[in-house]
């Protein structure tokens, strides 16, 4: 079971002077249960790529299959397949529209044709996931919430669909560090408890490095690197620099120490690892 992209090319405004190739011959398989991070600078094709995963964009060339079903075939099978992929866009709070929070979250499940009892169960599930108490918030207007809370309502709306594949495009942009940690903590928890496949697009290398089991680096519409985060940060320096993405702050610190002449193992991805590596080097007497 997987999402497969077979030789995808996507061209914006084809046949006009503004024609631009946003994806260029991308081959990719996202297997069930993976936690995939996608990074790349603005305009590298990340968002275009993820909009193919649930059929929002139709590739100019190539095909997208979810669990073997071509998303752009005719018939109910393709429609069912598209529903397996839940998508949280950038700034999802801009998409809230209902009068109450529970109605907003219920919109998706209701469109799936579920009965009212199941819809309420889904709404509670979604609210529970994002840490919003049903009793307190269900009947409030989503537009009276803080930005961080609105973001959670929007994410709850996607969780309530119980997708097999969860795609999130920059879910933490504009949240404070605590809000960011909460959202990511919940995504990790969901991944671990339900085995949902997660595809996370982010500028924040630190978060991706910490969470993803597989990292995809995009540049100029192509997949430049596809490996585990630690392998990429260790060996992919040049490609990362060429792709215009930052290494995590810890990696940057360790490289700075290395450049200063400290023979430290610079592959650390967390503060704890960095501290251990520095202590080993310093206590080994190799101060410089």
């Amino acid at each position: 079971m997987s999402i497969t992209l077979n030789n995808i090319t996507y061209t914006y405004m084809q046949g006009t002077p503004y024609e631009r190739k946003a994806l260029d011959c991308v081959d990719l398989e996202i297997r069930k249960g993976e936690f995939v991070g996608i990074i790349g600078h603005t305009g590298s094709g990340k968002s275009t790529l993820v909009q193919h995963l649930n059929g929002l964009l139709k590739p100019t060339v190539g095909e997208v299959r979810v669990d073997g079903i071509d998303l752009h075939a005719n018939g109910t099978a393709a429609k069912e397949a598209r529903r397996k992929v839940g998508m949280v866009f950038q700034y999802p709070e801009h998409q809230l529209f209902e009068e109450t929070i529970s109605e907003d979250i219920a919109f998706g499940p209701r469109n799936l044709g579920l009965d009212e009892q199941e819809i309420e169960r889904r709404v509670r599930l979604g609210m529970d996931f994002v840490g919003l108490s049903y009793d307190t918030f269900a009947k409030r207007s989503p537009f009276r919430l803080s930005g961080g809370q609105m973001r959670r309502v929007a994410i709850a709306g996607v969780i309530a669909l119980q997708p097999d594949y969860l795609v999130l495009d920059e879910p933490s942009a504009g949240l404070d560090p605590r809000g960011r940690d909460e959202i990511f903590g919940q995504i990790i928890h969901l991944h671990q408890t339900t085995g949902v496949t997660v595809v996370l697009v982010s500028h924040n290398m630190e978060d991706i490095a910490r969470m993803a089991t597989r990292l995809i680096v995009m540049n100029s519409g192509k997949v430049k690197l596809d490996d585990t985060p630690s392998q990429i940060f260790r060996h992919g320096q040049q490609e990362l620099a060429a792709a215009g993405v930052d290494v995590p702050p810890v990696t940057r610190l360790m490289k700075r120490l290395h450049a200063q002449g400290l023979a430290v193992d610079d592959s650390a991805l967390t503060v704890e690892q960095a501290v251990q590596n520095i202590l080993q080097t310093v206590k080994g007497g190799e101060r410089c």
Partner: protein
Amino acid sequence: MGDIIKLGNLCHTYTDHEGNLVHALEQVNMTVSRGEFVAVIGTNGSGKSTLAKHLNALLLPTDGKCIVNDLDTSQDENLWAVRQSVGMVFQNPDNQIVAAIVEEDVAFGPENLGIPPAQIIQRVDEALALVGMEEYRHHAPHLLSGGQKQRVAIAGVLAMRPACLVLDEPTAMLDPHGREEVLATVHKLNKNEKITVIYITHFMEEAVTADRVIVMEYGRIIMQGRPEEIFIQVEKLKHLGLDVPVAADVALKLREQGLQLPMTIITDDELAVALCP
């Protein structure tokens, strides 16, 4: 020189939709000297943006005083002078750009001030040069990158020749490259043009570069000082739900493991030099 901003017991209280009294700002006292670069940090809802909106009279104090450039913001007749003194830049560049061509967007402010056309052209030239966007003057803003759009938004504010720039999370929607562009531009304006900067951010590596850091929680200022005084308080900041620069975090943990390191380390360079003089 003196102080460009003086807040005395500034309070902002409002009634929410359920009839509860919300104290968005409580007894805030602060001054900002001319030419200073002040970073403001705090979690969502701590009052940072409410504070910023007082500085150019988008919000007025419900109690206390807000004095900007020697003008009391609560006096109606001062409104335009206050808004001209303090330029605001917000998070989302797409919400701040009004025209279809970059130079027209930058000209929007001075046009509204009733400045003669010849001078407007001069101001637009200057403002675009200051943010390094001259070559894009005839471009359409929606085709620019996020960092470039934000620099156009800053140019639009600069064309009004403010004494003070207030930036409310100007880099929150940008990628790392765009963030660097914007921060470098703001520093250049502060250093070369002596524009006072109030810079609200969630990115601690940006706050580290300020002259002074102000930490807010529940509508109050709870800490302030030089970055090295604030960011060495790793545990306290984490408890507040804020990040700390990774170098400060690593240095603290190394000290706990018995390594002799100065207390003031907050940047990668400082840690590198301390470990390898």
